[in-house]
């Protein structure tokens, strides 16, 4: 399991960098396996450098930059793991318009190889969906699901 994972990690690292550069329009994202005293101590470190910025401690990234980095890492890991499905609840909440458009395009492409179910308030994201469900309250406290025409939500 340890060897499998460090092999997989190299693949995730490569894919993470590709997706990071795609979502940020440049820069660099890397994963590193940090050896511990034992297999249990091993950890995965992340280096995320937006384009033109100096490499920094992840906590210094802005809220939107952290979201985008998280998305790149999760999509990369899913691809390498061959996960058949992802359910993403409002992962685009902190993204500005430019980043949101890039995320929506990536999600659409990702959904050609795996199933994606995405809860969102953002128009660019919902426009990419093949199936759009609207959830509303038919009366307070009682949810209902309806098919939605995109024009109602823009």
């Amino acid at each position, binding site marked *: 399991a340890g060897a*499998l*994972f460090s092999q*997989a*990690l190299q693949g995730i690292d490569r894919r993470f960098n590709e997706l990071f550069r795609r979502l940020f329009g440049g820069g660099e994202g890397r994963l590193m*396996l*940090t050896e*511990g005293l034992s297999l*249990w101590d*091993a*950890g*995965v*470190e*992340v280096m*995320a450098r937006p384009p033109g910025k100096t490499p920094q401690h992840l906590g210094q990234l802005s809220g939107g930059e*952290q*979201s985008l*980095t*998280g*998305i790149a890492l*999760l999509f990369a*890991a*899913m691809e390498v*793991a*061959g*996960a*058949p*499905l*992802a*359910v*993403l*609840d*409002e*992962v685009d909440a*902190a993204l500005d318009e430019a980043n949101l458009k890039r995320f929506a395009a990536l999600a659409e492409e990702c*959904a*050609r190889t795996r*199933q*994606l*179910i*995405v*809860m*969102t308030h953002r128009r660019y994201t*919902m426009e*990419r*969906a*093949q*199936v*759009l*469900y609207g*959830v509303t*309250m038919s*009366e*307070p*406290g*009682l*949810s*209902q*699901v309806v098919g*939605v025409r995109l024009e109602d*939500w823009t």
Partner: protein
Amino acid sequence: MFLERLFLKNFKSFGGSHELRFAPGFTAVVGPNGSGKSNLLDALRWVLGDGSASRLRITRLGDLAFQGSASLARSTEAEVSLRLREISDGIEGGRGRSCTLGRRFSPEDGGSLFFLDGARVRLQDVDEAKRSWRLEGDRFAFIGQGEVAEVVQQRPRERRVHLESLF
């Protein structure tokens, strides 16, 4: 494989019976604050075997049952079922095999019951079915509301465990 159909009955705010059919590709779920979008994610987690109170955003199992509204009485029971479908190779034009996972909570049962294609099974059987459908452990990535930055904020050891769960 993909999730083909989700059925909910008295699960959280979904009083009564409700059905959703997902795209094999990209499905978006939209709606006002508090309408029930995240509750759908909770339903998926729960039917796939998750029992964590914090991930399900409850304090007791009874919180999963519809608490009532003006015109629909509260329920003591909750039920979710999920049909999984194999993506067909299309040679004969038919659909691939399918399987339906179900979970039901009722106070009399003292906990929740699991079902596989209608037959009562144990949690181990659900895990076995998930393995055969490549859904074992957390191979499916469920990112809850507000959690997307978590993988960036985690400690290296936690992140390794999280990523490994996908394999």
